[in-house]
């Protein structure tokens, strides 16, 4: 077993609603090239294993992993795909390095959501084919139902959820990689059309294209290659019931369990005191509030209140989604978790530009795989 694992290289491309100038391969290449340059490695010579995250139906290609090696420099190397979120990919690389068998591993995730013309039709195919899909409901209904139950039990309000949108899309204005920056008011959000009541269209992240590549290294390699390694203190991931009939609608156990696992590895007992900032899933605005509570930063029902008070604002005590989150950067499908982790790395390196936070040492990235899943992952990092 190796000791610690660090992220030593990051690269990205796209982060726009459409990217017609590039094929998905060319989009991946640009991100990879930047990540390898950032890490100071030659993928053909140095990187020992590669991990991608992808789902076939997001790509429109079965066995999509076929098409991943060439543009990442991974031809004739140990490479595999995880059909999960980018944080699952990072956790996989983390495990590979911890076996002691590998010292440099690259992770890739991307979205070409603009090429998927029927996202709702495809997402409907993630519903149970016998029990749920024949009811022919747009899968956002799962978000609406969960939000309704969450508001009912926690006492959080629609205004508080709208406040998340205001904050994140305002944060996005400071992030050149966030196409959905905007100055909005709570009223602007709440006056939008409903998507699946109480969930509104304007509380839902729009899809975007983009690719992210990260290079992970063993402690030994990281110390040689990088002046600003970002250490992984803990990784956790978990599933809850995939069935809509028997899941606990008021909580997100997958997030709670994933956090518990990551905290145990990191030796963290008081997350709010130990962790300085977080990037959490906000595919739907309420998800940010729910996740902050499940991650143990706030008591159940408290996240909405502290959001209204500005605590999670970029100038607050506990900044959340300074990048703009999914609401600001877009829903990047399987790459969402990598986008969250990217912001943590940029911030911990002190290279986040105008949105740089001061005095930070530990950050947490969280991701959720979207409706109808009950699957999430957490990663804790420090500089």
């Amino acid at each position, binding site marked *: 077993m190796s000791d610690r694992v660090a992220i030593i290289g990051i690269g990205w491309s796209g982060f726009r609603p459409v990217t017609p100038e*590039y094929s998905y*391969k*060319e989009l991946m*290449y640009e991100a990879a090239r930047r990540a390898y340059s950032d890490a100071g490695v030659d993928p053909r010579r140095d990187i020992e294993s590669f991990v991608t995250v992808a789902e076939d*139906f997001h790509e429109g290609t079965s066995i999509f992993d076929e098409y991943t090696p*060439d543009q990442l420099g991974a031809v004739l190397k140990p490479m595999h795909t995880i059909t999960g979120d980018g944080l699952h990919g990072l956790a996989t690389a983390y495990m590979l390095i911890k076996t002691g068998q590998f010292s440099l591993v690259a992770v890739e995730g991307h979205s070409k959501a603009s090429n*998927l013309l029927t996202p709702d*039709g495809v997402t*409907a195919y993630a519903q149970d*084919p016998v029990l749920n899909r024949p009811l022919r409901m747009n899968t956002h209904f799962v978000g609406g139902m969960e939000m309704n139950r969450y508001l009912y039990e926690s006492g959080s309000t629609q205004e508080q959820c709208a406040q998340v949108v205001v904050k994140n899309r305002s944060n996005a204005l400071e992030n050149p990689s966030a196409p959905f920056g905007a100055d909005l008011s709570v009223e602007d959000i709440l006056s939008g059309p409903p998507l699946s009541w109480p969930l509104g269209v304007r509380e839902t992240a729009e899809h975007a294209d983009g690719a992210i590549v990260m290079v992970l290294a063993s402690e030994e390699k990281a110390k040689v290659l990088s002046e600003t390694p970002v250490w992984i203190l803990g990784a956790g991931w978990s599933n809850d019931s995939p069935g809509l009939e028997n899941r606990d609608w008021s909580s997100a156990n997958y997030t709670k369990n994933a956090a518990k696992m990551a905290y145990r590895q990191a030796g963290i007992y008081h997350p709010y005191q130990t962790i300085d900032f977080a990037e959490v899933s906000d595919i739907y605005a309420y998800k940010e509030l729910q996740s902050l509570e499940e991650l143990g930063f706030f008591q159940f029902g408290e996240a909405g209140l502290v959001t209204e008070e500005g605590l999670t604002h970029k100038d607050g005590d506990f900044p959340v989604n300074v990048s703009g989150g999914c609401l600001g950067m877009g829903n990047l499908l399987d790459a969402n978790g990598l986008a969250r982790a990217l912001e943590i790395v940029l911030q911990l390196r002190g290279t986040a530009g105008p949105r740089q936070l001061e005095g930070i040492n530990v950050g947490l990235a969280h991701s959720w795989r979207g409706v109808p899943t009950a699957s999430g992952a957490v990663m804790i990092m420090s500089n």
Partner: protein
Amino acid sequence: MSDKISTYPGTSLSEKEIRDGKVLSIQDQMPGKFSWDTGIAIGKYLAGLKDGVIFGSYCATCRRTVVPPRTICEWCFQPMDRYIPLEDTGIVNTFSLCYVTWDVRRIKEPETPAVIEIDGASSLHGIMHKLGEVEPQEIKIGMRVKAVWKSAEMRQGAITDILYFKPHEGSH
């Protein structure tokens, strides 16, 4: 443990049991529509096909010409140096005579898929296409072939702008 297991789970059904309604089933078809960005290299390839030209790309580091073209060389991971118009002739690297369609309908006259090494590309570099104007039994590995194109006005920038490859005598 295999020799200690008396029964293995799993229940076999026949098509008939479903057809007769003894086992219920649900049918559905996914509304999955895609519009894939061709990007730079494949965009060039398709534009070439529309003009009746097969493009490859050349890597000066590896001294290799590949087809279909790409923007990067997968061996050295450097950008490709240039696009090269290749011949529309080549040799059959391998072929098959296929008596079932992609959705498993039986056909009498076989489809004739082949990998064709394109003249002008490096050795063993080719594309998948079909053969035509030849008796299936006459096809041989190593046979020289030439593309048969759709007429210029019918071409639309797709791999099907080449109808098939036919036997071709003569040097390249």
